[in-house]
């Protein structure tokens, strides 16, 4: 029994974190807010350290790594609020690798030349669809699932504006045809469910990183802000707000790690484990955002302060890839739907 990332996984996470510290500053995030797309030369740089092709199979020039590495690296991406669609591209890449590995698409993702966009059943919008090389769309109608691979240029894309303006969302209208269809029926349903789980796991990992970032910012602020002649960090009321965030974070992390472990091995509990991860990381980030805002006071309520860059991402991701209600329903169905669940393992 061992619940810890391997040294290699930790090294990968730290490498990405160190790279983004310089390459994804809050000034750069504000540039992403102002631009039509958040995708920049940083994507190509990330490709050089293997990040864009992390889950792309080795045959297509990727690293062919698992959901464990994926979750570890996304924690660092969350810490920086990386605006490029790393999560979405990876989810799309997983589906492409299974059903449409040709046409050099995966190679271009791995090399950083391109991104892929994805729209799963139930998702209203696709991120960076206009910029993407390829758009992978899943549909479920009357219980029948299909997966289509589309050229974004052939779709009608309507840009939306997120509270987090670095999330370039598009409503997608597309014409499905036998030419765009790559999978249907049970195989498609299974793959789409797994893709949704990967997305939820990735969102949970991003939320862990965001939680840590907002906590760090609030702690730093509490250490230097003086009111009535004392540092506000000496007040127990402030200390306890921040301690509560750390408790949420420290208990969310092993839950996310276990979900990565389960999904990487396609264990029977994987879907439930992923839902737990999304719930715990979402709650941690939600509390971090609220308490960090409270500790910052009025300055945190401004657009000019950087806290908003991370709070807004946390709010958006809390609802994306299944909100808490959706994931609670999934856990409840798993635990209460059939035979009484046992936490203590049986064998």
């Amino acid at each position, binding site marked *: *029994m061992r619940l*810890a990332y391997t040294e290699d996984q930790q090294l990968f996470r730290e490498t990405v974190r160190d790279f983004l510290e310089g390459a994804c500053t809050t000034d750069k995030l504000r540039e992403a807010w102002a631009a039509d797309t958040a995708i920049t030369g940083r994507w190509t740089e990330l490709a050089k350290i293997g990040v864009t092709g992390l889950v792309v199979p080795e045959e297509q020039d990727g690293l062919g790594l698992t959901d464990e590495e994926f979750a570890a690296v996304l924690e660092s991406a969350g810490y920086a609020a990386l605006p490029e669609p790393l999560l979405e591209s990876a989810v799309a890449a997983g589906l492409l690798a299974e059903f449409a590995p040709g046409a050099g698409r995966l190679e271009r993702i791995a090399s950083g030349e391109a991104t892929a966009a994805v729209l799963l059943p139930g998702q209203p919008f696709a991120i960076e669809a206009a910029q993407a090389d390829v758009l992978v769309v899943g549909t479920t109608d009357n219980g029948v699932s299909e997966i289509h691979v589309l050229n974004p240029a052939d779709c009608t894309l309507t840009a939306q504006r997120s509270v987090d303006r670095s999330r370039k969302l598009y409503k997608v209208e597309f014409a499905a045809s036998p030419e765009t269809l790559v999978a249907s029926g049970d195989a498609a349903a299974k793959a789409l469910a797994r893709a949704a789980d990967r997305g939820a796991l990735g969102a949970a990992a991003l939320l862990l990183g965001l939680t840590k970032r907002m906590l760090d910012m609030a702690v730093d602020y509490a*250490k230097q802000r003086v009111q009535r002649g004392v540092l506000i960090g000496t007040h127990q009321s402030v200390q306890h707000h*921040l301690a509560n965030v750390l408790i949420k974070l420290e*208990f969310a*992390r092993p839950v996310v790690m276990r979900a990565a472990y389960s999904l990487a091995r396609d264990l029977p509990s994987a879907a439930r484990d992923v839902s737990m991860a999304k719930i715990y990381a979402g709650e941690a980030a939600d509390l971090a955002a609220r308490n960090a805002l409270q500790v910052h006071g009025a300055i945190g309520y401004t657009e000019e302060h950087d806290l908003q860059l991370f709070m807004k991402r946390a709010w958006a991701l809390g609802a994306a890839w299944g909100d808490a209600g959706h994931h609670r329903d999934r856990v409840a169905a798993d635990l209460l739907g059939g035979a009484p669940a046992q936490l203590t*393992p049986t064998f």
Partner: protein
Amino acid sequence: MDLEFSPKEQEFRQEVRSWLEANVPATPLPSMDTEEGFRLHQEWEKKLFDARWAVVSWPKAYGGREAGLTEWLIFEEEYYRAGAPGRVSQNGIFLFAPTVFEFGSQEQQDRYLPKMASGEEIWVQGWSEPEAGSDLANVRSRADRDDERGGWVLNGQKIWSSRGTYGHRLFGLFRTDPESKRHHGLTYFMVDLASAGVTVRPIPQLDGEPGFAEVFLDDVFVPDADVLGGPGEGWKIMIATTGSERGLNLRSPGRFLAPADRLLALYQERGNGDQVLRDAAVQAWMDAEAYRLFTFGTVTKLLDGGQIGADSSINKVFWSQMDVELHATALKLLGGYGELDEGSPDAVDGARWLDGFLFALGGPIYAGTNEIQRNTIAERILGLPRAK
């Protein structure tokens, strides 16, 4: 990561499970805080000890199995899954023993550990005083040197001493340097509660049973042989004990996994599809699972040579809150039956949920209140300036 148990560990689990299935009393024992219940719990401890299950992680010489941390977690999971009796000896075997192993002399270890493990001698905490609760450094009870008899004369008052009503020996801090302040000049004593000058006043807890007591000491003589470590070293040694209390030892995940499973079963019986209670029951189950995973992470860290340190404060806040929520949810599911205590003919499951709820309410208070824990987290982990 590797979240599987090894074949050897699974074999261990099977062995524990088989023994417990054959030996756990079919009907629950009376509360360990009643005279009869205390005795029956002691007998149960003896039975565990004779089968070498009382102290699995201890050395074989003292009746243990030298089980590793993972095996200890497995033992605990199985123990509570089987519905086995609460551990009347727990303050000794889990809280105090690690300190005896680390700081006690060979002679002290040989003299005390076997009887502690077999349940023959039940140990009692002597931390708090009327003016020293969470502020433990404010200890006023004192010990004066008696060179003639080769020991110390203790005077003062301890309070909230768990198992004090029926227990046999007390461990705690006394001020040996009258000039000293705060955490200086304190010494760690082991006191025979049958000594002349000891008066024990039982204090009924919320459940009506005297789970803790007030202990008055009037010129109680304690020989040098019953000083743990050296004079003045009490604080350092005490920190080691509270470390194990908040860390791993006191509340293994198994203690919450079993009631969390039972809570889901209770929901299935009585939930009537109520969505709010469904979410609360599922949350309690997930929290128990999260606590287990968190503990796996802690065990991994310890096996890699790391320390728990202030992280134990994070742990303590979490499990104590979880325990309250879990039992509060059960009482809501019981509706009008929730308030019935074990004396009621129609009490559900012998009123165990009410009993568990009343017990859980102490969690956020004892072992350092959760407010003190949050201060510790803020100052020692987050690095915030000391609270004024």
